[in-house]
């Protein structure tokens, strides 16, 4: 079943055209990776999918819904972790989870989620006092607190220590195994290779390559996704 269907998506900021023509499909229950250089338009694309930005052109359906005209319904069924966001400095971890859970019709058990993500020891800590990695964990947990069918994770493990990264990978796989669809933006090739079922490389506002990690590696005639990424993007840049 197709969960996300994007056709010819276009988006400009003022005169600067960021998304030229993005076309892709994400199937239910897969972990879909989006790779690409800084400024390629990954965040813009994901924010269009989660209803935060209005596309200028093309068609976009998430869970069969239009993120602009059917936002309210869509927001109940998706979860988002933004690349740049914050909470009020004085809010405590447990308060934030409880608050966000209260926005949804059928939320997850926020206490269980807090436990699962190792946040229980920090439940009384104020957001402003958390280190970057702990903030990141909280943001991931907040993306899941609505019990979403689709999760958008923009720069999932940026700022996490190696152990937290491994833990996060495990939890994301568990989620997929429960049927949740995951869209993941990342700059870490090992993460994409370890986690993603399929990957799209976005460059200059277009999907320039798409496939499983294995397919991309053979397409680039290399041994690792890391090398393949460079081989493939260099060819498109030149």
């Amino acid at each position, binding site marked *: 079943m197709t969960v996300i269907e994007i056709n010819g998506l276009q988006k400009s900021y003022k005169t600067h055209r960021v998304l030229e023509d993005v076309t892709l499909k994400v199937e239910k229950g897969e972990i879909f990776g989006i790779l690409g250089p800084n400024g390629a338009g990954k965040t813009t694309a994901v924010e269009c999918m989660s209803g935060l930005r209005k596309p200028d052109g093309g068609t976009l359906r998430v869970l069969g819904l239009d993120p602009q005209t059917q936002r309210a319904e869509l927001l109940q069924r998706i979860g988002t972790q933004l690349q740049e*966001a914050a909470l009020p400095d*004085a809010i405590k971890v447990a308060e934030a989870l409880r608050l966000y859970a209260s*926005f949804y019709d059928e939320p997850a058990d926020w206490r269980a989620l807090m436990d699962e993500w190792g946040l229980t020891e920090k439940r009384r800590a104020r957001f402003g006092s958390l280190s970057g990695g702990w903030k990141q964990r909280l943001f991931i947990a907040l993306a899941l607190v609505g019990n979403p069918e689709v999760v958008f994770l923009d720069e999932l493990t940026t700022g996490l220590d190696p152990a937290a990264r491994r833990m996060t990978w495990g939890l994301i796989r568990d989620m997929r195994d429960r049927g949740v669809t995951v869209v993941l933006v990342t700059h870490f090739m090992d993460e994409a290779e370890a986690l993603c079922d399929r990957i799209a490389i976005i460059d200059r506002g277009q999907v320039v390559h798409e496939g499983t990690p294995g397919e991309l590696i053979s397409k680039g005639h290399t041994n690792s996704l890391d090398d393949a990424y460079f081989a493939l993007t260099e060819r498109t840049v030149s």
Partner: protein
Amino acid sequence: MKGLGNVIAIELKLALRDPMAAFFALAFPAVILWMKMRNGGTLPSGLPIIEAVVPMLSVFVIGLASLVVLPATMAQYRERRVLKRLRATPASSTMIFGAQWAAHMLLAVVGTAVLAVIGVFAYNLQGPVDVPGMVLAWVLGALSLGAIGLLIGALVPSGRAATVVGLAVFFPMVFVSGAMSARETLPESMRSLGDWTPMAPAVQAVRAGWEGHAASPVTLAVMAGIFIVASAAALKAYRW
């Protein structure tokens, strides 16, 4: 409106945890009360001065919470992308507005209660005479000034600008509208200027209720009108 009670409770906690907001809304009016009462005495009408000072300072507290603290909170949330994160949830802008308003007005209720308690124990405060009338006037004042605060919060570009604009609107207004010194002691020119500010009807109506006079329906209608116009404008101008 799911989760509205929860957001209000958390926003109120956050406001009380913020030392600036707590000082502004709670301690500052109490200090002014003490300054006003150092000489004691009665107004020209024979009214004990405390029966004028507590109701007018309760409007002062509403003004501080709605025109200074609330816009700064909103603008800071926008600047730091707290609102952007909320936008990715089912929480609506109306709910965010409602919660901000309610939490800041609860802050003003706490501030008013502090004033009343000090008044009763230190200065033999008697009023309010007409409790429902006073409460109605207070709530309408909170709605009208709160809506103006939301509008400022929606329009200003940054948290810093919000504080500057808020204070620039608040301070002249409390002086001329009679929220700082009793209206009847103000020079005529100042009072007629003050009558054009949105704080004047709140001061008049709250004091009328306090003393047991009927507030004029025009005053109440003006506050309702300000609320409708300013809150519609704020919702229209709202940015995440």
